[in-house]
């Protein structure tokens, strides 16, 4: 019992200390709690992986005395240990004393001395705890991929710390509204309350004025574009039929950047970001190369830094490769799903069964051409709640780079509340509906006999079997989707055709039938039953919308044909409620946005990171495990905290000492202080000033390597310098001038190599003067 109180109070005290230190980094309304990561004095860490020695504040201890302890006894004990009161902290159970030791006793010795005194209830080092930012989103407990305490999620228990360490990462950054992540997918329900704050808005476009304000050829592309239906509205069309799109893009978007700490639903890996909605698919799950290429070029033109690609296919398209390569040139990272296993649902090896775009991360053969690996592509496999590779997940020792959580992922989905724009039962006076029949050998009409859908349905062959060599249609009336979004066409259908040869198709038009787009075809036998079917998307905001059903047969074999009923165009009715519009999905599609969100976090911490630096930060900081060894090239699952730490302070300056003399090299900011070879870590993009101080009897002869001259050395990390100290008394320095370089601006990120080249040039110039 005492022990429990003891730990709890220790946590409160030390966190209070750290919060004060870091207060500038922590939003005021955010719940912060501590998790002890380390093991010390035989006490077991609560959770987490120890990443170094036990940490506590040097020279400080915390002591709680028993109530009966006398003030004089306390004072005398403190004299014995050399402890001086820093701060008494009043807690429920009394007073905790925070003492500073005078150095005569080590922290361990002092703790032991106090513990052995009967007046002391407990004594311990002033442990440092890792801060964690736990957001107040109501479903945060279900997001095991971000924070796994072993909790049961959707009926299945997890394993503590089999997660991406998001709360630890959020100590460093929770995102930024300046980082644009493009989601190329089925669209995004941009009206979802948990997404709305993080939806990108095109700064160059005036909403709804019908003018292409930014001159990019697209009118009113406010939040993105629908490259499937070529309309301005990238709303994710939800499909209530099994097998269709259940709100895929909206789910992915929520994992990247569902609004964090807003007291609602879930949070993304980024609490704050800008999500660009690039709709290239829809209710049919399928995305064509042309839509993808256009979407990628849009992302390039509009300043996205990361593209989420939660889709895959077996074809290596050159046009797709060229677009991804153009994104690489533009400094855009593309996070791609490794893909879910084929028909058997078991993950395949992408080394032998290529999957694209994820395999663009490795050398590929497209259309007979050998194509180089693209460094901006990271292929992502999926892990489960115990950090195992998901059974459905594709993998590849050279073709998949990393894994991320992809099983039982809870995120946002569009509302399933739809409004009906058009509904044809064909029951009373179907002629009045205005269908037009035509094409080659058309026998389309209405029937009340063969169909089991009473009283009437629409059919290609009202009297017996269809004919050979037909390509006929039943074209519905023109209708409007102006003011509507997320529209799609569905119906019930009964069919019997020559399998894979004769088929019934739905075509859609948004220009009164001037041009048609095929959405889907079916063939085979429904065994006399009507099935619900979602045919495909309908363009939003079009006054000239139309659909037609086509029947196409070849020269042999005829059957009963197709019957259609309850033909419906439905669109999104209202915004999602924000309380019920969440769902669990599985897939490498769900793993991918965890990595895209991490890339966004890295860019929020350091917007100047190149594609290569982002890639390295993500892949070199993974948590490795046996299940992923040999399955992904990095051997592990992403760790957001470790990746962020690596870009915040990841670069090294190496100092070598040369010459017969001796001396000390120090740095400003601190981090280096050495008399021989040593190195220090400094934030990327910062400027570090090195000083050399010769010992008596030695002299500083100068810098070499990435600095020169004898003056202070100002340098950007990722550099190596040598300091030479000589014994001989130096010749008198003529003009008293060393070689001094004006310090760079701190935080001004330059490609290290470029910076060093210009620095070297500056130095040469300066020294010649």
């Amino acid at each position: 019992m005492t022990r429990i109180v003891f730990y709890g109070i220790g946590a409160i005290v030390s966190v209070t200390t750290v919060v004060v230190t870091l207060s500038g980094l922590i939003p005021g309304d955010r719940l912060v709690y501590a998790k002890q990561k380390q093991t010390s004095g035989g006490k077991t860490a609560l959770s987490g992986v120890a990443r170094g020695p036990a940490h506590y504040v040097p020279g400080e201890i915390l002591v709680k005395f028993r109530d009966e302890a006398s003030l004089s006894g306390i004072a005398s004990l403190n004299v014995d240990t050399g402890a001086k009161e820093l701060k008494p902290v009043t807690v429920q159970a009394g007073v905790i004393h925070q003492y500073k030791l005078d150095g005569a006793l080590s922290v361990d010795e002092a703790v032991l001395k106090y513990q052995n005194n009967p007046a002391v209830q407990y004594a311990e080092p002033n442990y440092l705890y890792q801060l964690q930012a736990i957001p107040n989103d109501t479903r945060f407990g279900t997001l095991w991929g971000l924070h796994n305490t072993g909790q049961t999620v959707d009926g299945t228990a997890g394993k503590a710390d089999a997660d991406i360490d998001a709360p630890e990462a959020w100590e460093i950054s929770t995102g930024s509204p300046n980082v644009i992540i493009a989601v190329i997918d089925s669209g995004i329900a941009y009206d979802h309350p948990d997404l709305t704050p993080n939806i990108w808005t095109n700064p160059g476009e005036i909403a709804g004025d019908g003018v292409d304000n930014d001159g990019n050829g697209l009118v009113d592309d406010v939040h993105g574009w629908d490259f499937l239906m070529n309309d301005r509205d990238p709303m994710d069309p939800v499909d209530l039929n099994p097998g269709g799109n259940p709100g895929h893009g909206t789910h992915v978007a929520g994992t990247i950047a569902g609004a964090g700490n807003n007291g609602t639903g879930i949070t993304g890996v980024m609490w704050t970001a800008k999500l660009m909605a690039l709709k290239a698919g829809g209710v049919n799950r399928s995305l064509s190369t042309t839509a993808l290429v256009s979407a990628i070029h849009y992302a390039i033109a509009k300043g996205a830094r990361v593209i989420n690609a939660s889709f895959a296919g077996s074809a290596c398209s050159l046009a797709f490769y060229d677009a991804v390569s153009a994104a690489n040139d533009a400094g855009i990272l593309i996070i791609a799903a490794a893909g879910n296993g084929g028909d058997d649902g078991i993950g395949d090896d992408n080394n032998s069964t290529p999957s694209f775009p994820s395999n663009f991360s490795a050398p590929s053969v497209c259309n007979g051409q050998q194509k180089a690996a693209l460094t901006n592509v990271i292929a992502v496999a999926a892990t489960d709640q115990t950090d195992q590779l998901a059974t459905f997940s594709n993998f590849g020792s050279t073709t998949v780079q990393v894994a991320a959580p992809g099983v039982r992922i809870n995120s946002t989905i569009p509302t399933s509340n739809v409004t009906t724009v058009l509904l044809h039962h064909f029951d009373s006076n179907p002629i009045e509906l205005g269908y037009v029949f035509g094409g080659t050998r058309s026998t389309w009409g209405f029937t009340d006999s063969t169909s089991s859908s009473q009283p009437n349905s629409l059919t290609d062959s009202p009297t017996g079997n269809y004919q050979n060599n037909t390509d006929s249609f039943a074209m519905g009336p023109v209708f409007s989707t102006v003011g509507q979004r997320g529209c799609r066409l569905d119906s019930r259908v009964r069919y019997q055709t020559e399998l894979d040869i004769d088929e019934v198709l739905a075509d859609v038009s948004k220009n009164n039938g001037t041009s048609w787009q095929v959405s889907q075809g079916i063939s085979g036998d429904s065994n006399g039953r009507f099935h619900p079917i979602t045919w495909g998307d309908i363009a939003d905001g079009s006054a000239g919308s139309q659909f037609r059903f086509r029947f196409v047969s070849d020269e042999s074999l005829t059957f009963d044909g197709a019957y259609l009923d309850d033909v419906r165009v439905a669109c999104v009715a209202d915004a999602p409620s924000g309380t019920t519009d969440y769902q669990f999905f599985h897939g490498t599609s769900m793993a991918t946005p965890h990595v895209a969100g991490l890339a966004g976090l890295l860019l929020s911490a350091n917007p100047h990171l190149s594609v290569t630096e982002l890639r390295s930060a993500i892949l070199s900081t993974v948590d490795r495990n046996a299940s992923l060894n040999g399955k992904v090239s990095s051997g592990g699952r992403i760790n957001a905290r470790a990746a962020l730490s690596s870009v915040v302070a990841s670069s090294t300056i190496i100092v070598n000492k040369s010459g017969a003399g001796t001396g000390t090299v120090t740095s400003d900011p601190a981090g280096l202080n050495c008399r021989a070879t040593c190195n220090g870590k400094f934030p990327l993009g910062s400027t570090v000033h090195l000083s050399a101080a010769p010992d008596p009897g030695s002299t500083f002869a100068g810098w070499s390597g990435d600095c020169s001259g004898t003056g202070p050395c100002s340098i950007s990390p990722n550099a190596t310098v040598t300091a030479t100290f000589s014994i001989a008394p130096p010749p008198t320095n003529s003009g008293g001038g060393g070689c001094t370089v004006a310090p760079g601006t701190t935080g001004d990120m330059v490609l290290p190599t470029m910076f060093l080249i210009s620095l070297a040039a500056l130095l040469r110039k300066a020294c010649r003067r």
Partner: protein
Amino acid sequence: MPLPLPRFAPKEVLVKFKDGVSSERIAAILKDNQTDVIAELQRGRLYHIRILEDRSVELAIAQLTSYREIEYAEPNYRYETQK
């Protein structure tokens, strides 16, 4: 059952022309091959076209790639979301 969507869009081809080919020449080649332009991507070098007559995508690609002005021609391949 609904057919699994074909691996590529029926009757559609993507054609990439080499740099320096005039727009007149591009139009002539596409017309000679009985195709309609659906869209120009990437500032006129990449064309999304529809095959007008009863020809397979494979045959149309074979015919198009015989032109030295064409860098490549390929089907409009499809990809699928991975939920």
